[in-house]
């Protein structure tokens, strides 16, 4: 082993330590949601005892205790800041997290395993907001999210339409000529199909883009790379072999920001979901109302509830301050079974 190899190991460990510290701070913020007050000295004592009894040979209790006192102090400082927590599906470095940053840099992003966990977390008050992708220019609609939207009581309070740029990443020190397999979410892999085949690379589906980046950093499989965001490269200390490996220049994803209740804000868009009676022209009757009112539809999507029975999503340009919009929605309600207004909100379009 050479000095530079030892140093590579040290860099990797440091990036893990920081990552874990960040995770710990997140858990502190979540714990705050269950506590009346920030201070809890009994719990601090409990943690210190565990830490002092650690079996790691080089970590003396004097050292660990001083570190943990710093951790407690900083965690409490963060808890006092009343930060807005936003749940997203995936690991840190996911595109949903990037979307949150475009919406509001101050929001703290908390990773969730499933979309359902995001919805549940917002519903229970664990998170202030949730962010979910609904549709992509290449991959189409995100099925599981649309299914959750049909049944949710949450409200859409914002949307972000964002370009998605994929990068090919490897663990530091990997020779690009040795890359054979590329791990990523199946949707990301399908968006880079031509790039992969041009370079004779085998796509390997993984549960999440950023998750693949994390796995690569931790287990360093031979001859492997992943496709993820540049943010993931920074977070997991990976090397960017090539940026923008997506096949289409215009690869965009639309994300929705969810909250438990409506927010008083300027709106320019509205999303609704409804079902109709099983009779001829039922859907047409609804669409005609929008056409007659001169309202521009921006999205229409049908999701099967059971064979032959559909929920319809419609997004349109309009504000809850416009009387024609409110009148039209009244008429729509009479023509449909189970109309739900998912929200009036503003959509942010990110260029590039």
């Amino acid at each position, binding site marked *: 082993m050479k000095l530079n190899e030892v140093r590579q190991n040290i860099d990797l460990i440091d990036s893990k330590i920081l990552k874990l510290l960040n995770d710990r701070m997140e858990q502190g913020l979540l714990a705050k949601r269950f506590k009346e007050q920030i201070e809890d000295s009994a719990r601090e004592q409990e943690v210190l005892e565990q830490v002092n009894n650690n079996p790691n040979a080089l970590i003396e209790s004097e050292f660990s205790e001083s570190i943990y006192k710093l951790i407690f102090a900083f965690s409490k400082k963060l808890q006092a800041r009343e930060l807005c927590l936003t749940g997203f599906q995936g690991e840190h470095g996911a595109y949903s997290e990037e979307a949150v940053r475009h919406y509001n840099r101050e929001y703290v992003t908390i990773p969730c395993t499933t979309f359902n966990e995001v919805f549940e977390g917002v519903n229970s008050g664990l998170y202030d907001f949730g962010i979910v992708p609904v549709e992509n220019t290449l991959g189409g609609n995100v099925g599981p999210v649309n299914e959750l939207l049909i049944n949710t009581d949450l409200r859409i309070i914002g949307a972000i339409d964002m370009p998605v740029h994929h990068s090919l990443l490897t663990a530091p020190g990997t020779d*690009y*000529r040795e890359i054979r397999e590329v791990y990523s979410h199946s949707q990301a892999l399908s968006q880079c199909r031509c*790039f992969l085949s*041009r*370079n*004779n690379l085998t796509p390997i589906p993984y549960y999440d883009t950023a998750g693949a980046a994390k796995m690569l950093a931790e287990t360093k499989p031979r001859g492997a790379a992943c496709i993820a965001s540049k943010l993931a490269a920074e977070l997991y200390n990976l090397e960017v*072999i*090539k940026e923008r490996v997506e096949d289409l220049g215009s690869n965009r994803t639309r994300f929705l920001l969810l909250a438990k209740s409506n927010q008083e804000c300027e709106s320019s868009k509205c999303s609704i979901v409804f079902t109709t009676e099983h009779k001829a022209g039922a859907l047409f009757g609804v669409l005609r109302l929008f056409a007659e009112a001169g309202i521009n539809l921006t999205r229409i999507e049908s999701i099967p509830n059971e064979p032959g029975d559909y929920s319809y999503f419609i997004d349109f340009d309009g504000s809850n301050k416009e009387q024609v919009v409110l009148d039209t929605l009244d008429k729509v309600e009479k023509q449909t079974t189970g109309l739900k207004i998912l929200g009036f909100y503003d959509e942010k379009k990110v260029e590039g």
Partner: protein
Amino acid sequence: MGNLKLVQLAENGKRTKIKVGSVMIGEGLVIVGGPCGVESEKQTLKTAEAVKTGGGMMFRGGAFKPRTSPYDFQGLGLEGLKLLARARENTGLPIVTEVIDPRDVSWVCEFADILQIGARNMQNFSLLREVGKTGKPVLLKRGMYSTLKEWLNCAEYILAEGNPNVILCERGIRTFETYTRNTLDLSMVPAVKELTHLPIFIDPSHGTGKLSLIEKMSLAAVAAGADGLLLEVHCNPSEAKSDADQQLTPDQFAALVKKITKLSRFMDEKLFKTSIITGGDQI
């Protein structure tokens, strides 16, 4: 000339044109400038800006350097390719860069607009086949010990793989002359034009290896009807890690481009477009 069925000039006299970015090769003079090697971020981006301001239409630079000695600077490899892509992002100039290893071909394609096959690799047939499969434009330099026939056969290899986008480039051959680094064989320009439909560039930098000779030989190349010039330019030639004696400063490059462009416009007149004496050996 042997079996050159794909590269030889057809009866109708139609010549190959290759569109690279906004540049059309085979239609007016194309000036390619840039350092011998990609050495650092600063050197690359600065030189690229200078090439752009000086009137260059494409940017060149080596990320993989086939050097005489294994101990000489071998290039930055992938890092170099990334820097070239950044240079293109900044200037909009298409990138010409050399590929020396068949395993690198697909990766160089990801970053470059034109693949260069260097003089030392002209007859590296597995490399020729590999670039032939890509469809990317290939700048095929003449080997320093190669005859025209051998050179054209190498182009035939690339076309035979299905890639019609070949640009030939004369960069000087070995003779008994020692004053110049190589002997720039400008007779290749009309020779290539009467035998093939492919565009031909001239590299006076390697062709002479001497700064003082580059201007005159560039003008002579344009007068001979070359489709393009490949010129080595470095933002600070005295500090170059390779070919320090033949790289132009940005000012020299800009002045040269001005002069060449004037001659090129003059040569565009009808009088110079057609040859007075025709004939000679056919393929």
